[in-house]
């Protein structure tokens, strides 16, 4: 399996596939319900002017989440060529 990094350390404009994140907790259940699931591709669009929260594109729409949550989301970087 390829190396995973935190969603919060993704470069702006980079896309990655979600691998895993914590099962418990309100924030993570809501994140699942918003369509961020293991296997989903996400793209980091930008960070807010003060560096937090993050804006990602997932399933064709834009979603914000804080770094504190994004730190727990492990993703696998997609090679730009693919």
């Amino acid at each position: 399996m390829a190396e995973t990094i935190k969603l919060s350390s993704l470069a702006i404009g980079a896309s990655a596939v979600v691998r895993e994140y914590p099962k418990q907790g309100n924030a993570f259940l809501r994140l699942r319900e918003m369509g961020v699931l293991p296997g989903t591709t996400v793209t980091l669009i930008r960070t807010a002017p003060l560096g937090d929260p993050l804006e990602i594109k997932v399933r064709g729409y834009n979603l914000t989440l804080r770094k504190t949550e994004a730190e727990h989301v492990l993703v696998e970087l997609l090679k730009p060529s693919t």
Partner: protein
Amino acid sequence: MSEPIKSTAPTRAPVYALVGNPNCGKSTLFNALTGLKQKIGNYPGVTVEKKMGTAYSQHGQPLTIIDLPGAYSLAARSPDEAVLRDVLLGRRADTPMPDRIVCIADATNLERNLYLVHQILDLGRPVILVLNMMDVAERAGLVVRAARMEKELGIPVIPCEAVNGKGLVELKLAMSRHDLPLSRHSWAIPAPIAPAVSEIAASLSENDQRAPLIARAEALLLLTDQDSVRVAGSRPLSARTVEILRSWEKRWEGQGTDWAGSLVNSRYDAITALCAHVIERGGEKTGASASDRIDSVVTHPVWGWAVLGAVMTALFLSIFTFAQVPMDWIGDHMAKLADAVKHTMPAGDLRDLITDGAIGGVGSVITFLPQILILFFFIGLLESTGYMARAAFIMDRLMSRVGLNGKSFIPMLSSYACAIPGIMATRTIEDTKDRLVTILVAPLMSCSARLPVYLLLIAALFPSTTVPIGAKVGIMISMYALGTLGAFGFAWLFKRTLLKGEPPLMIMELPPYRLPKLRDVALHMCERAWMFLKRAGTIILGISIILWFLTAYPKAPAGTTDQQQLAQSFAGIAGHAIEPVIKPLGFDWQIGIGLITSFAAREVFVSSMGVIFNAQTSDDNTAPLHDALLAAKWPDGRALFTPLVCITLMVFYVFAMQCISTVAVVRRETNSWRWPLFQIAYMTGTAWLVCLIIYQTGRAFGF
């Protein structure tokens, strides 16, 4: 397949529920279906708006439509979502359980929108699916095959463009059908969870009297609803069902089964498969969309602040300038009306009650209307264009320092104009505790009613004209800064103590920018104004009359001046009574009267001082009052309004909760007297303490 539920009794109009994600165009569709035949209220016990309306079927039959709050999931995270869930499950006694459901999905964002639809299909009631914004989807290169979807799901699927009214006739036709089919959709519940679903469903139908299909849907919901938001007015579950639920959860925890996660996964698997079948991609545009291009400016590290600053300045200027004209007009006409009554009625207590008590009270209620209308017009615009979410996105980092999220920003900022619309705007904050904290601290922002008090006291502070304007402005800015610091300080404190909770989520959609629909914005604005009049107006009127009574009785003998009347009234007696408490702050009983009468509204302090010190002032010229204040003395001959007392008094007005209208609105928005009373206690208590420190320290240094 179970047979359709026969709930459409011939005696009453069928009840339709309108449900959908936020930003899917639900309100536009509701307004288009019902026209102005709407009734806006509140779900008893919670501050969630209840909107019902009547539409007419193609055969002219009335159809009742409930516009339920927008939500992403039936697993509730906020009171809004809890109300949606409870109404759909028939858990609320105050609302009829909808017979049929119209789901609205944004065609440009189908997968996420279908998640809620998928949960609703489980409910086993006839569903009509509306695919809104088909035009936008088409322009983005997505072709959604509604007919294929209809075949897959077995329910009517109606392509629609709610903004231009396209698809409305087809929707009404479908709603007029007597034989709406039930969905044929089926999805695989993960194997480890299936037995739990059946056991909980069985208990729900046995112990909680649920219909079989609803029992299954509710069982599924209970499993994802880890920390289900309970709201007042919904029936609790039976003990047996809760027991079964907990024992399964315990078992899964032991085994390390992620039950909630795998349920969500299976739903999305089914949705992905459906979407692959009904959406034809390929023509999709690559590169940045219009929204992305706007956002690269609006959320830019430099330009973002400029845009936010410009929007907020526009909001403020229009509240201050546009609201002033109608507010003055209302004030003038109320005065004229009082004069007219004075001339036509014989003198006496009844006339005074009408002219000074009732007309004055009504005036103080409707004088807020212009500000409320303007603020909600702006908020409506910001929300319907999508900018509101960006403002929250930009401000979240700062607000999170005190434990709030970006959504508290607009209500707190609006409170600089007036806390009343600010507090009413907190309804956009989903988390109950965050909302309450925002309500509690909002009145600390220096509102426009404090301005006349600050101006009067600054004038008394610097009587000579030689003082540079900078010093006056500096004092004014310090007062605003002090209030702001206080608000953030107390928010921080409350989030750590009284209203301790999880850090608020910032998992929020940034919807694409859209052109606002002015009709919807105007409707929203009028609803807000009406709610204010109906729900807070009566309390404000009542307290205004009581306060008037306190200044007008007991009556002084005929021929005495207003000054003597006020001095010997109940308010005057109270002023004397509180003197021992306020003397350590450097205030005497005459200032005490001002504090008591200005509990009605802060600006009343100025007119009360005018009466107490018998200064003939007008709105344009308060100079005689400054002189009168400077001439005022303690009985022992010391000056009353020393610079130190002026400063202390200003600080008192920064912190003290001197506004009955705010009290009334907080009472309405929190549904109890507990919070407004707490607010009075903590704000006025802080004011007293801070003033004590300032005055005594100042005295010790010889001021």
